[in-house]
C-alpha cells in the first residue's frame, strides 16, 4: 500500500449556464480514482463556485498510481432529475511519482466535455505521498523518468545507454463493443478516453519495469502510438531507449539518488547473443518453408508477397546471397557459441522464450518476407536491396584485428541485446562513430480480432519480425546498431501496414559499458572478442583495416560519414571517395539518415526541407486480395519516393539527407507516400553531380531543343539553389574509387511505376553511376511531366528556411521568438484520377500548405520552420488529409553567419559548452536565497571569481527536501560565516512537511509574482528553447482527447469544428503544464489526428493524441541579470562538492 494520493478541489470559473431559468449553475465535483469516489458539496447558483473542499485522500498501490488517471467530474445538481455532467478533467499523476519531476499539481485546468468542448475551468491541488517499495517482485516502476525528447535531456548526463525497450498492450475498442449501440456518444467517448488513459499508464509502467530490470532509470525518446484497429481492437504500443541519466550537478546529494548510484551493478544485459546474429540467414530455399512458418502463427493474417515471379524480379537474391552467406556464417557461429549465456542473466519476457527456442522456422519466414520488403525498403538507401540479402555479415566482414577488437567490444555488448536499437536522434559527442544508411522494413498484415487482450502475441510477433529484419539490414551495412529508430502503422479497414525505419550505425562503447563496476565485465568479455576475431576471416583487407584502425581518434566533423562497411564488399553499389575533410577514410557519395544532423558535423551552407510525394491508385479489394495488392505496390512506391528524393537532393546541390521519414498511408483506392527529410551539403562527402537529361530515342530537332531547354532549366535551378543555400564547397581534386561491382550502365533512370514492366525491372540498374552522370532519361511525354514536377517545387520565399530536423545548419543566432503551430488540411478528390493527376494534386496540396505557412508566419522573417512534421492520411475514399506540426523560430540576420567548416566547429563548441556548462538555477531558489537564507553572504560573493572559470557549476533542484538537506550539509561543512538559526528554521519546516507543502507554497508565490493571470506556456516540437535554459523536466505529457459534434454546421463546419478542437487541445496541454509548475512543453508532437465527418448527418468526430515533455526554462538574459545571486549559490554548491 505504498502511496497516498491527495486531491483538493478549490474553485471553478467560467462554468456554463446549466439552469436556464436562473442563468446559473449548482455545481459540485466528483473526484474519482480507481473505484473510490469523493464528492464536494453543491455550490448553489454560481458560475464561479468556491468549493474549497477538504483533502480527499486515496490510499492506493503504486501500480494503480501509474496506471490510473485521477478523474474529476464537474456536475450540475438537479433536485428532480438526474444530475447533468458539465465535463471532466483527467489528471495524469505520473509526474508526481518521480522525485525529480513535479511535486504538486496546482492550477486552473479546463473542464472538458467530448460533445461541448471546454466548459469552464476548475482549480485543483493534487499531491502524492509515496512510500518506498523495495519489494523485488513489485509490478510498479515509479521513479523511472520518461522523456519524449529524442536526445539526452538538457540538464542530464547519460551515464549509460542501455538500449531498446518496447511494449504493447491491446484491448477491445469501446466504440465497437455491443454496449455502444445503447449508450450515448458522450459515454462512449468517455469510455474510450479513459481506456486509453489506462492503457498508456499501464504501458508506461511496464516499460518502466523493463528499464529497471536493465538497470536504467529513464526512458529517452519515448514514442507511444495508438493503432485504432476498429473491430479488431485497440493497440497501444511504445518504444524508447532505456538510459541511466544523472542530473548534471555538483551537489553531493544527487549522487545518492537511488537509481543513479550504481547503474551497472544491477544491470542485466539481455542475453540474446546466441540467437540474434545468425537469425535471418536464409540458407535454405525460402518458399517451401514459408508456408510452414505462417501456419505456426496466423496463416491468414500475415502477408507477404505470394507471387514468386515478382520475387525474382525484384530481389536479385541469387547474386547477393552468394556473396555474403558463406563467409559470414562460420564467423557468427564462432562468435556466438563461446558466449556463456549463464554469465549474462537473461532478460525475459513472456513470449520470448518460445521464440528463442524455435528460431529456425520463424526466422526463415522472416528473411523471406524480408526479401520482398528489403527490396522495398532499401530503395531508400540507393536501392540497397542487395545488401539486405547478405544479412548477418557484419561480424564476418570485420577487417583488421585492431578495428575489430574495438568494434567487438561494443558490438558484443549490443548483440547481447535483443535489438540494438536506439530511438535517439541526437547523441552525446563521441557516441555515434559511423553511419551506414537508412534501414527500413514494412509488412502488410490482415487484422483480426484480438481474442485475448492479455496475450497480445500476434501483434508482438509482427513487430518482432520487422525488428529482426531491420537488425539484419543493419548488419548488412556493417553496423551493429540502429539509431533514430521509429515504428508506425497505417490502417485501412482490415489491412494494416507496419513500418519501421532507422539508421544503421556504429556506436562507441563508451556509453554502453562505462561505469566503475563495469570494467570487470568488459575485461571478461575481451578475450571472447579476440577469440571470435581470430576465427574470423581476415583474408580481406589488411590495407583498409590499417586505415580504419584508429577511427576513434578521427575528427568528429567527418568521422560519422566514414563508411562502416568493408569497401571491398560493399553491400550495395556506391561510389566511394576519400573523405573530403580528413582525406584518410572512405565516404559514400550520398548519405541518407533518419537522425538529426550531428552538432559536430561539418556542413557547407544551409539545409532545406526536401519532400518526395507520391500517390498510387489501387483497385478496391477485400481481405487477402487487398493485402496482396498493397504489398505488390509497396516496392514501386518506395522506389519512386527514393528516386524523387535523390533527384530533388541533386537539384539542390546537396549530398546528404537527415531526419528522413517515409510515411506510407493506405486507403481503399489509393496508396500515399510522403518522404520528408532535411537536405544538407556535408563537407566530407563529394559534391553531387548535376542532373543530365537524355532522350532515349533519337528524334527530331524540336525534341532535342526541348531537351536542351529543359537541361538548361535544371542547371539554372541547381545554380540558383546553390546560391540560395550558400553551398560553395572548396574545389578539390576528385578521386573516385568506384564501386567494385561492375556497372553495366553508368546512370539510373527515372521510373514511373505505371510504365514499368517486369522486364524493365529486371534490367534495373542499381548504381547511380559516375558523379556527373546522374541521368534522367526521357522516353515518353510522362517523363517530361516528371521533370516538370521536379522543377515546380517552389523555392521558399525570401527570409524563410525550412527543415524537419531539430536545427538548421548555418543558423545559430536564434532569437527567443518561437511560434509552434498545427495546420490540417483535407482535400477532396474527384473520382477517376490517373496516377499522374493524383500525384500532381497531392504534390500541390503539400506545396500550397507550405506556402500558406510561409505567408502566415511572414511577420517572423527572417525565420526557419524547424521540425516540419507532415502526417498524411486517407480518412475516407476520396479524401487526403495532411497535418503539419512545426515551430517557426526567428533568427538574427544582423550577425554574420559563418559558413562551412568554421560554422561546423563553432556549433561543436557551442554544443559542448551547452552540454557541459549547465549553469542552472531556479527562480524559486533565488528567492529563497535572498529571503530566508542568508547565504548570499560576502564569502560566497568573494569566491565568484575563482569559480567562474571552474567547469560547470550547477545546482540541483530534484526536490526541495533534497536541496535543503544538501544545503544543510554544506553549511555543516563550512559553517563559519553563516547564521545557523535561520537555516535551522528552514530545515525544521521542511521536516514537518516532507515534500510538497513548502514547495507548493513557493511555487504559487512564484506564479503570482509573474503577474499575468494566465501563465504563458511555450510549446515546441524541438528539444530546446532558443535563448533559454531548461532547468527542470517535470514529466511527460501524454494526452488523448475525443471530440464529437452533432451540430457541425452550427460550429462553423468542419474547419470551425477542428479549429476549435485543436485550440482546445493546446489549451489543455498548456494548462496541465502550468499546473505542474512548468512554462514550456518541449519535444511536443501530435501523434494522432483522426478526423471523421458525416456532413449529411451534420456530425463529425475527431481524436487527437499529443505528447511532450513539460519543463521549466529560464531565459538566459534572466540568468545574467540575477547572476550575482546564482553565482553565490552555485559557488556554495560547488564548494560543497569539493568539500566532500
Amino acid at each position: 500500500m505504498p502511496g497516498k494520493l491527495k486531491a483538493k478541489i478549490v474553485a471553478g470559473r467560467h462554468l456554463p449556464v446549466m439552469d436556464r431559468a436562473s442563468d446559473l449553475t449548482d455545481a459540485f465535483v466528483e473526484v474519482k480514482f480507481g473505484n473510490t469516489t469523493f464528492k464536494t458539496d453543491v455550490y448553489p447558483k454560481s458560475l464561479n463556485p468556491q468549493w474549497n473542499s477538504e483533502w480527499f485522500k486515496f490510499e492506493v498501490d503504486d501500480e494503480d498510481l501509474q496506471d490510473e488517471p485521477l478523474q474529476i467530474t464537474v456536475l450540475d445538481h438537479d433536485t428532480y432529475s438526474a444530475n447533468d455532467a458539465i465535463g471532466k478533467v483527467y489528471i495524469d499523476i505520473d509526474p508526481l511519482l518521480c522525485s525529480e519531476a513535479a511535486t504538486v499539481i496546482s492550477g486552473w485546468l479546463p473542464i472538458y466535455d467530448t460533445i461541448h468542448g471546454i466548459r469552464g475551468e476548475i482549480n485543483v491541488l493534487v499531491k502524492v505521498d509515496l512510500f518506498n517499495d523495495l519489494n523485488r517482485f513489485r509490478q510498479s516502476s515509479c521513479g523511472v523518468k520518461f522523456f519524449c525528447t529524442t536526445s539526452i535531456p538538457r540538464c542530464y548526463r547519460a551515464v549509460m545507454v542501455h538500449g531498446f525497450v518496447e511494449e504493447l498492450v491491446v484491448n477491445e475498442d469501446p466504440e465497437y463493443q455491443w454496449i455502444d449501440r445503447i449508450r450515448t456518444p458522450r459515454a462512449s467517448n468517455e469510455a474510450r478516453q479513459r481506456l486509453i488513459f489506462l492503457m498508456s499508464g499501464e504501458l508506461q509502467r511496464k516499460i518502466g519495469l523493463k528499464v529497471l530490470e536493465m538497470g536504467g532509470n529513464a526512458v529517452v525518446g519515448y514514442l507511444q502510438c495508438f493503432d485504432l484497429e476498429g473491430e479488431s481492437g485497440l493497440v497501444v504500443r511504445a518504444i524508447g531507449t532505456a538510459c541511466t541519466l544523472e542530473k548534471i550537478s555538483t551537489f553531493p546529494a544527487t549522487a545518492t539518488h537511488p537509481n543513479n548510484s550504481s547503474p551497472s551493478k544491477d544491470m542485466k544485459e539481455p542475453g540474446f547473443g546466441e540467437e540474434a546474429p545468425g537469425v535471418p540467414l536464409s540458407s535454405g530455399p525460402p518458399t517451401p518453408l514459408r508456408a510452414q512458418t505462417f501456419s505456426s502463427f496466423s496463416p491468414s493474417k500475415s502477408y507477404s508477397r505470394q507471387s514468386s515471379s515478382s520475387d525474382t524480379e525484384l530481389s536479385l537474391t541469387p547474386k547477393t546471397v552468394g556473396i555474403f552467406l558463406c563467409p559470414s556464417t562460420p564467423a557468427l557461429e564462432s562468435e556466438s557459441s563461446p558466449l556463456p549465456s549463464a554469465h549474462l542473466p537473461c532478460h525475459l519476457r513472456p513470449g520470448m522464450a518460445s521464440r528463442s527456442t524455435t528460431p529456425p522456422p520463424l526466422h526463415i519466414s522472416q528473411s523471406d518476407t524480408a526479401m520482398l520488403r528489403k527490396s522495398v525498403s532499401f530503395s531508400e538507401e540507393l536501392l540497397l536491396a542487395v545488401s539486405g540479402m547478405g544479412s548477418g555479415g557484419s561480424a564476418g566482414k570485420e577487417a583488421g584485428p585492431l578495428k575489430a577488437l574495438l568494434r567487438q567490444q561494443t558490438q558484443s555488448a549490443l548483440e547481447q541485446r535483443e535489438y540494438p536499437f536506439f530511438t535517439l536522434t541526437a547523441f552525446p559527442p563521441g557516441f555515434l562513430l559511423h553511419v551506414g544508411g537508412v534501414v527500413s522494413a514494412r509488412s502488410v498484415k490482415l487484422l483480426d480480432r484480438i481474442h485475448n487482450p492479455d496475450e497480445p502475441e500476434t501483434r508482438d510477433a509482427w513487430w518482432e519480425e520487422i525488428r529482426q529484419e531491420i537488425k539484419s539490414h543493419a548488419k548488412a551495412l556493417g553496423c551493429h546498431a540502429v539509431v533514430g529508430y521509429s515504428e508506425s502503422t497505417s490502417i485501412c479497414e482490415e489491412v494494416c501496414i507496419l513500418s519501421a525505419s532507422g539508421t544503421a550505425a556504429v556506436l562507441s562503447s563508451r556509453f554502453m559499458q562505462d561505469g566503475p563496476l563495469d570494467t570487470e565485465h568488459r575485461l571478461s568479455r575481451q578475450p571472447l572478442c579476440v577469440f571470435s576475431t581470430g576465427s574470423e576471416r581476415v583474408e580481406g583487407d589488411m590495407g583498409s583495416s590499417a586505415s580504419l584502425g584508429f577511427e576513434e581518434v578521427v575528427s568528429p566533423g567527418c568521422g560519422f560519414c566514414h563508411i562502416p562497411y568493408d569497401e571491398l564488399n560493399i553491400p550495395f553499389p556506391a561510389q566511394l571517395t576519400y573523405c573530403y575533410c580528413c582525406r584518410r577514410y572512405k565516404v559514400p557519395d550520398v548519405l541518407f539518415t533518419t537522425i538529426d544532423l550531428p552538432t559536430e558535423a561539418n556542413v557547407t551552407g544551409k539545409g532545406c526541407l526536401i519532400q518526395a510525394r507520391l500517390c498510387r491508385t489501387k483497385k478496391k479489394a477485400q481481405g487477402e486480395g487487398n493485402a496482396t495488392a498493397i504489398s505488390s505496390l509497396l516496392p514501386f512506391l518506395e522506389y519512386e519516393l527514393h528516386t524523387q528524393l535523390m533527384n530533388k537532393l541533386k537539384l539542390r546541390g546537396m549530398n546528404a539527407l537527415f531526419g528522413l521519414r517515409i510515411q506510407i498511408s493506405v486507403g481503399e483506392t489509393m496508396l500515399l507516400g510522403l518522404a520528408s527529410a532535411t537536405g544538407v551539403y556535408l563537407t566530407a562527402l563529394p559534391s553531387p553531380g548535376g542532373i543530365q537529361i537524355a532522350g532515349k530515342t533519337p528524334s527530331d530537332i524540336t525534341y532535342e531543343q526541348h531537351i536542351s531547354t529543359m537541361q538548361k532549366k535544371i542547371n539554372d535551378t541547381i545554380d540558383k539553389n546553390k546560391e540560395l543555400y550558400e553551398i560553395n564547397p572548396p574545389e578539390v581534386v576528385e578521386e573516385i574509387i568506384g564501386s567494385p561491382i561492375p556497372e553495366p550502365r553508368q546512370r539510373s533512370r527515372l521510373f514511373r511505376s505505371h510504365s514499368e514492366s517486369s522486364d524493365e525491372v529486371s534490367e534495373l540498374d542499381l548504381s547511380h553511376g559516375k558523379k556527373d552522370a546522374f541521368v534522367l532519361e526521357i522516353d515518353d511525354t510522362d517523363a517530361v511531366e516528371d521533370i516538370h514536377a521536379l522543377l515546380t517545387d517552389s523555392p521558399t520565399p525570401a527570409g524563410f528556411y525550412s527543415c524537419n530536423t531539430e536545427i538548421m545548419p548555418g543558423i545559430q543566432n536564434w532569437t527567443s521568438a518561437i511560434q509552434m503551430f498545427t495546420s490540417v488540411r483535407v482535400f477532396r478528390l474527384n473520382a477517376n484520377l490517373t496516377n499522374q493527376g493524383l500525384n500532381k494534386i497531392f504534390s500541390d496540396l503539400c506545396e500550397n500548405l507550405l506556402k500558406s505557412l510561409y505567408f502566415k508566419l511572414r511577420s517572423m522573417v527572417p525565420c526557419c520552420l524547424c521540425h516540419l512534421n507532415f502526417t498524411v492520411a486517407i480518412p475516407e475514399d476520396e479524401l487526403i488529409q495532411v497535418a503539419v506540426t512545426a515551430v517557426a523560430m526567428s533568427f538574427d540576420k544582423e550577425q554574420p553567419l559563418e559558413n562551412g567548416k568554421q560554422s561546423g566547429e563553432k556549433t561543436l563548441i557551442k554544443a559542448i559548452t551547452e552540454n557541459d556548462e549547465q549553469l542552472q538555477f531556479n527562480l524559486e531558489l533565488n528567492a529563497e536565497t535572498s529571503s530566508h537564507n542568508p547565504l548570499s553572504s560576502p564569502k560566497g560573493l568573494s569566491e565568484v571569481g575563482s569559480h567562474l572559470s571552474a567547469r560547470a557549476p550547477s545546482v540541483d533542484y530534484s526536490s526541495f527536501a533534497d536541496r535543503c538537506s544538501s544545503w544543510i550539509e554544506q553549511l555543516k561543512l563550512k559553517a563559519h560565516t553563516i547564521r545557523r538559526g535561520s537555516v535551522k528554521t528552514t530545515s525544521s519546516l521542511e521536516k514537518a512537511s516532507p515534500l510538497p507543502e513548502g514547495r507548493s507554497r513557493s511555487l504559487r508565490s512564484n506564479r503570482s509574482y509573474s503577474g499575468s493571470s494566465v501563465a504563458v506556456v511555450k510549446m515546441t516540437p524541438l528539444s530546446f528553447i532558443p535563448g533559454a535554459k531548461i532547468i527542470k523536466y517535470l514529466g511527460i505529457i501524454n494526452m488523448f482527447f475525443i471530440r464529437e459534434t452533432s451540430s457541425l454546421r452550427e460550429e462553423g463546419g468542419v474547419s470551425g469544428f477542428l479549429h476549435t478542437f485543436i485550440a482546445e487541445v493546446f489549451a489543455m496541454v498548456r494548462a496541465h503544464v502550468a499546473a505542474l509548475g512548468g512554462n514550456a512543453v518541449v519535444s511536443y508532437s501530435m501523434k494522432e489526428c483522426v478526423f471523421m465527418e458525416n456532413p449529411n448527418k451534420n456530425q463529425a468526430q475527431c481524436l487527437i493524441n499529443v505528447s511532450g515533455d513539460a519543463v521549466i526554462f529560464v531565459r538566459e538574459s534572466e540568468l545574467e541579470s540575477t547572476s550575482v545571486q546564482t553565482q553565490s549559490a552555485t559557488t556554495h554548491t560547488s564548494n560543497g562538492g569539493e568539500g566532500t
Partner: protein
Amino acid sequence: MSVELDVFVGNTTIMDKEVYQLWLNGYTVNDAVKVRIEGGVMEECEASAEVLLSDTMDQYRTFQMCERLLHHPAKLANQLLFQIPPDRQAMLIERYYAFDDSFVREVLGKKLSKGTKKDLDDVSTKTGITLKSCRRQFDNFKRVFKVVEELKGPLVENIRQHFLLPDQLARDYAAIVFFANNRFETGKKKLQYLTFQDFAFCAGQLINNWTLGAVDNMMEDMDVDLDKEFLQDLKDLKILITDKDLLDQHKSRVNNETSHPLSLVCNALRGKTNVFNEMEANFKNLSRGLVNIAAKLINAKDVRDFFIDLVEKFIEPCRSDKWTSIDMNLYLTHYTNSAHILDTFKHHAVWTRYMGVIKSCILRMYHD
C-alpha cells in the same frame, strides 16, 4: 477537387491587424481578399490568391471564436483557449470597441433598443458602413450601457475596468451611455454640424459637474443621471432675468468689465465696435436664453433639448453677429463672473456649477 477543411492553429494565436480591421468593418471573406490583394500583400510575400483566401478564412474563423470573449474583455485575460500576448489583447479589445464617428452620430442619444437596431440598415446606407459593422457597434454600445447602468461609482472608471478600454475610448463610451440614458436630441438639422467629439466633450463636462457623482464620489448613486437637486436649484437662477434691476445691473457690469481699460483683450474687443455694440444690444436676449435653459432642465423633456436650445438660444444669435470664439470666451467669462458681484444675487454655487459647464460646452460647440 476542393479543399474540404483548412485550419491553422498557433500556440500563440496569430492575428493580422489588417485582416482584423477588415473583419471589424464587416467585409465578407471574398471582399477582404480583394482588399488585401489591392493592398499588395501578395507581391510582398510571394503569395497567391489561394493562399490569401485560406489565410483570410482562417483569421476570420479565429476572430469569430474570439468574439464571444471580446464581449467580456475581462475574460480574454484569464481564458485558456487562446494564448494571446497582453499587448495583442489590448489591441483586439480596443479595435473591437472602436466605432465610427459617423455611425455614432446617427444613434447618439437614441434609445439603445431593438427598434433602433432594426433601423440600422438605414444608418448603414446613409453612412456607407456595412450593416455588420453597424450591428457590432450598436451591440457594443448596448452591452456597455447594460453593464454600467447597474454599477455604482464613476462612470468612466467603471467602463474602463469592465471593458479594459483605454482612457479616451472609455470616456467616449461614457458619453454614449450618458447620452443614451438622458436621450439628448442630437439628430436635429441644426445640430448636424456638431461632431461626436463635440458631444463627447460636453458629455464629459456634464458628467463631471452636473451628475450626483460629481458632487460626491462616495455617493452610491450613478453617474449617468443628472443631479436632481441641482436641477431644482437651477430654477432659482431665473431671478437673473425676472428681476429687472438685476438684469440691468448684470448688463452694465458685463459692459464695464469688457470695457475695462487695463484689459488688453478688452481693448481688442472694443476695437471691434460692432461686435461690442451688438453684444450690448443682445445682452438681454442671450442672458434670458441661458437662464431659461437652466430653469427648464428640471423637466426631462427639456433636458433632451438641451443642446438644441443652446444652439438656438445662444450660438446662432452669436454666429449671426459674427463673434469669434475669443469674443465668446471673453463674454462668457465676464458674464459669469459679474453675476457674483451683483448685490442681490445669492445663488453663487449653483451659478458657478451651471455656467462652468455651459461656458465650456458653448465654446466647444461654437464652430462651423
